Structures are given as structure tokens and as C-alpha cells.
């Protein structure tokens, strides 16, 4: 096996280890999500044992993965299409708190737990705050310092979102 293949395998292992902590596997996630997670693993390998590194790209790739997964799950639901849009994470969190009663009823009828939207709103707000404070914005131009604590917290939030969203996958398909 050549170096490229070995490294791809190592990235895949990192992704699976991360997802397994939350009872999720890469096969349950969208292709676009897995692409972000592969890039996350690449960035993670780059900064491992490098205390001087800025972890903003690690944070950014997890945020991208969350956005990608939400877009192809709840974002396909009428009334939640904004989750598949280009809006900022903070904006998506805010709009989750404004979802109308009819959409909520429809989701509940499909078996989605009542508290899911509220929990997602809270988790997305936390992600948005980390991203804002570290300026881990898209495009890479305005990246500011993100610490290992930021990356750890982002990892925890991302895993929790994946776990929660998987429970809706079967009902929103």
C-alpha cells in the first residue's frame, strides 16, 4: 500500500474513532459530510503534537460537517429548508428557535422527538460562538487562533449533533 493510501486509511480511522464515540458510523452520514470529516482528519494529523499550531481549520471542518449533515437530513423537511441554505451557523440556530407550530407537528407526527429542535438550536449556537470567537470562518482568510480546548468542544458538539440527527434520518427520508 502506498503512502497516499496509508494516509487515507489513517484519516478514515480517525473519523471512525471519532464517530464511534457517539455511536455513529461514517456509512450513516452523507457523502458531503464524510468529505468534510476527511478534511478534518487531514487537518488534525497536521496539527497533532504541534502545540504552536492554530486549530482553526480543525474547528472549521467540523462546522462544515455539521452543516453538510443538517442540509441532507432535517434541511429537506418543509419549514426547515434554511438548514440547507448558505446562512451562518448562528443564523440557522436563531431560525431553529422560530420554527412554526405546523412544522413541529409534522415532525412529531413523523416520530421526531419534540425536544430535538430546541437541542439543535442550543448546540448550533454553541458552535457558532466558537466559530465567531476563533473566527474559523469559511474561506480561510480570516482565521484566528483556535486552541485545543476549542477543537475539543467543537468535537463534542459535532458528535452530539450527529447522534441526534441520525435518529431523524429514518423518518425524514
Amino acid at each position, binding site marked *: 500500500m502506498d503512502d*497516499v493510501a496509508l*494516509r487515507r486509511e489513517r484519516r478514515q480511522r480517525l473519523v471512525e474513532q471519532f464517530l464511534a464515540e457517539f455511536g455513529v458510523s461514517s456509512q450513516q452520514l452523507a457523502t458531503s459530510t464524510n468529505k468534510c470529516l476527511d478534511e478534518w482528519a487531514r487537518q488534525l494529523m*497536521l496539527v497533532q503534537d*504541534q*502545540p*504552536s*499550531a*492554530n486549530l482553526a481549520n480543525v474547528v472549521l471542518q467540523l462546522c462544515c460537517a455539521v452543516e453538510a449533515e443538517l442540509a441532507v437530513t432535517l434541511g429537506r423537511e418543509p419549514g426547515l429548508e434554511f438548514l440547507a441554505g448558505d446562512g451562518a451557523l448562528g443564523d440557522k440556530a436563531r431560525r431553529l428557535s422560530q420554527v412554526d407550530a405546523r412544522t413541529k407537528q409534522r415532525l412529531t407526527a413523523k416520530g421526531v422527538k419534540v425536544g430535538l429542535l430546541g437541542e439543535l438550536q442550543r448546540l448550533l449556537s454553541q458552535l457558532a460562538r466558537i466559530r465567531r470567537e476563533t473566527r474559523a470562518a469559511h474561506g480561510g482568510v480570516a*482565521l484566528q487562533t483556535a486552541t485545543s480546548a476549542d477543537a475539543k468542544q467543537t468535537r463534542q458538539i459535532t458528535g452530539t449533533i450527529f447522534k441526534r440527527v441520525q435518529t431523524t434520518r429514518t423518518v425524514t427520508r
Partner: protein
Amino acid sequence: MRLLVVCAGNTCRSPMAAGLARKIAVERSVDLDVRSAGVAHHPGRLVERKAVAVMAEIGIDISTEYSKPVTPNDVDWADLVVVVEHEHAFYLAEKYPTAAAKIHELASDVQDPYCQPLPEYRKCRDRLEELLLRLPIWRNRAV
């Protein structure tokens, strides 16, 4: 000769290595232009003060250096790209495949001294100098 030195944050190892390379070039009368950058840089942050301090001990001033990203322009500009970590070499070769041939690992790993005490920075500085002196760019050019 144009040399690009790359590390993680571009706050310790690569600015130190760049300063050392400039000094060696002067001592050996080698026409060398040097830049440094990081694969996970801190935009605009000045080089670590301990790195500045240990370089000042040997008469090299890197106090005005600041953290910069590796750009396609930098990679294109360089005749030689020197990295201090195995992982960084792979990353750059993947990202800039046409530049793969000019990417050179100083050693498999030069430990990141960030937040370590001054002696660790000295150790890192001396190790970098030792490794830089092994580069083929100085050959047959000693005064």
C-alpha cells in the same frame, strides 16, 4: 537561491530556521533569499518571545517576524521548501503536487518548543542549525 521554511504555527521553528539560514548564507557568501510560513498559522501574531530571545543570544534578530500562512505564491517562489515535520511534507506535497520534488524534510520531526522553557528553545535552535548545515545549498560555497 530562494528558500521557504515551513512549520506549524510559524511562530517558533520556521522563523528561527529562517534567521539561521540567513546567517549561514552571509557567513558562506551564498546568495539566499529566505521566507518562512506555517501550515496552521496565527494571522499576524508576532514570533514567540522565547524564540526571539534565544536567537538574539547568537546575534540574530527575528523580533519583527510574524506568523504567515503558506501560500501558493510562496511555494511557487521557492527553489527549495524545507519542512520540520514529516506530516507537513506530506500535506504540502498533496496540496502542491507540482512542487513535491522541491520539498525537503529537515529531519523526520523537530520538536515544537512552543510554551517550553528557554533551554528547549535553545535545543531547538541548535538542532535546526545542525540540520540546516546539512542542506546541499551550502556545498562548495564555504568561504
